[in-house]
């Protein structure tokens, strides 16, 4: 049996005395969509930051394709094929949409014209081709979220971490976003999605990891999670 694309094993992240993630383990296979849910403060973004190299775990390990990743930095994570979006959108405001994505494409293509081409593809893929020459700062938040996805895709990742891409979207936009995630999966990129919008990830996730107060309390297919009493309790705060 081949190693999973991503294997998080006993991951613990503490900030001083505060434990943000405690002994979390789960795996993501290639082309899977994995949901990561939990009440506020459960440690979802911290977990993302560990996988993406922004935080060094206090203990535990992260392995990509069987190879453990020690002392991962964000730039090294990107080079290894882990891309991410940010909860609070961080596009490059002084650059156009196309240039934003071109920066992402330049990870693997240093020549400007080759990178631009890849960037155009990615922009078209997320449906922003018409806004290519708009300065990122002039785009709506929903557009900038899609822009971040395009930028992340341009780095040709194997794994994409989506941090609340659907927050603040209206139902029509959510539908589009779900469809986009499916197309990403079909392109061969696995996704871990942090979401609060349940109706978006339940239908598409292969399995869902539930965090509460830093610990994993459930990990299984969406139908099982929906019925899991521990999950329900965590959300209702009993």
């Amino acid at each position, binding site marked *: 049996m081949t190693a999973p694309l991503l294997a998080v094993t006993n991951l613990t992240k503490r900030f001083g005395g505060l434990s943000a993630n405690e002994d979390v383990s789960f795996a993501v296979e290639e082309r899977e969509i994995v949901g990561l849910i939990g009440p506020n403060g459960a440690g979802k973004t911290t977990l993302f930051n560990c996988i*993406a190299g*922004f935080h060094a775990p206090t203990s535990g390990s992260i392995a990509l394709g069987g190879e453990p990743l020690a002392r991962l*930095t*964000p*730039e090294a*994570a*990107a*080079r290894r094929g882990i*891309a*991410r979006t*940010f909860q609070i959108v*961080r*596009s*490059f*405001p*002084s*650059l156009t949409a196309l*240039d934003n994505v*071109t*920066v*992402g494409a*330049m*990870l693997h293509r*240093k*020549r*400007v014209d080759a*990178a631009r081409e890849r960037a155009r593809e990615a922009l078209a893929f997320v449906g922003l081709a018409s806004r290519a020459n*708009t*300065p990122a*700062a*002039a785009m709506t938040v929903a557009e900038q979220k899609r822009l*971040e996805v395009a*930028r*992340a895709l*341009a*780095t040709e990742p194997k794994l994409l971490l989506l941090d609340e891409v659907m927050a603040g979207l209206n139902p029509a936009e959510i539908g589009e976003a779900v469809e986009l995630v499916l197309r990403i999966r079909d392109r061969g990129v696995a996704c871990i999605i942090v979401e609060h919008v349940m109706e978006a990830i339940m239908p598409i996730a292969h399995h869902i990891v539930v965090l509460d107060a830093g610990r994993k309390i459930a990990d299984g297919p969406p139908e099982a999670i929906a019925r899991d009493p521990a999950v329900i309790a965590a959300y209702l705060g009993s």
Partner: protein
Amino acid sequence: MPAAKRVALLAVLALAVALPWLVANPSQLNFAILVLMIAQAGVAWNILGGYAGQVSLGHAAFYGIGAYTSTKLLLAWGLSPWLGMLAGGLVAVAFALAIGWPCFRLKGHYFAMATIAIAEILQIVVTNTDAMGGAVGLQLPFANEGWAGFVFNRSKLPYYYIILALLLVTLSASRLIERSFLGYYFRAIKDEPDAARSVGIDLTRYKLAAIAASSFLTALGGSFYAQKELYIDPGSTLATSLSIKIALVAILGGVGTLSGPVVGAVILTAIEETTRTVFGGTGRGTDLIVYGLLIIVVAVFYPAGVVGGLRDLGRRWRGPGAAREPLPAEGER
């Protein structure tokens, strides 16, 4: 590039080449040379400060390293100043990498202060090192006149063309960088360092690239200064006031634009000369008053500088939908 812009650029270039024949007297030619000198330093600064957003207020360190390296090599071993210029550039790069490595993890104000501190320390050390001429400085020989010796006594004309060529080289380097992946990476680092890291950009590596290019070109300017003035001392080549002036021409003209520092150099030097002639001498403080007010007005009302402001005007003229550069939120340094 649109045809109109290309024609305009060629016209400016033609004017620049023809300028010595259009000016009335040698002091005006000297004025033009001074403008080109500070413009060249500003364009070099802009690579690090404008494009990559790493504000250095200690660039005189590189200028002085260029000046002192080529001069010492000339005085001690008779090395041709042309080679000395290149040597100065390399020494500046080595110094830049050495200070950049630890300092680039500093953010914003801390980094700017560190650059001031380093340049001041260098000035103090040179001032107190006899081998470098100490506070008195170094005198370059009047001999060796001609192109080989890089000394021209009878007419300043060759100096004008050399500095013009040096400015064009610096502009070309800047443009090449701007249009390559380096340019994109620098902008990304300036705008959002964390997002840049998330797409694989090693911040320190590219900041070092920026400071290497910037320091090399600045040092060339310093060597030119030495050969033109035939006398260098810490006060003229290593002073914080020079660092401020170099950054100022870029800010005045437009940080992060190619032509900004050149425009800024023209404006600043024109204002300096005007205040000097109108108010007479620097002893009365009036030039400082004008200087200070100018800096404040530009920093507060025109942070994009002249070129940036003109571009905004052009964008507004052309139609809605184009945004101006947003300002960072509080808490960001």
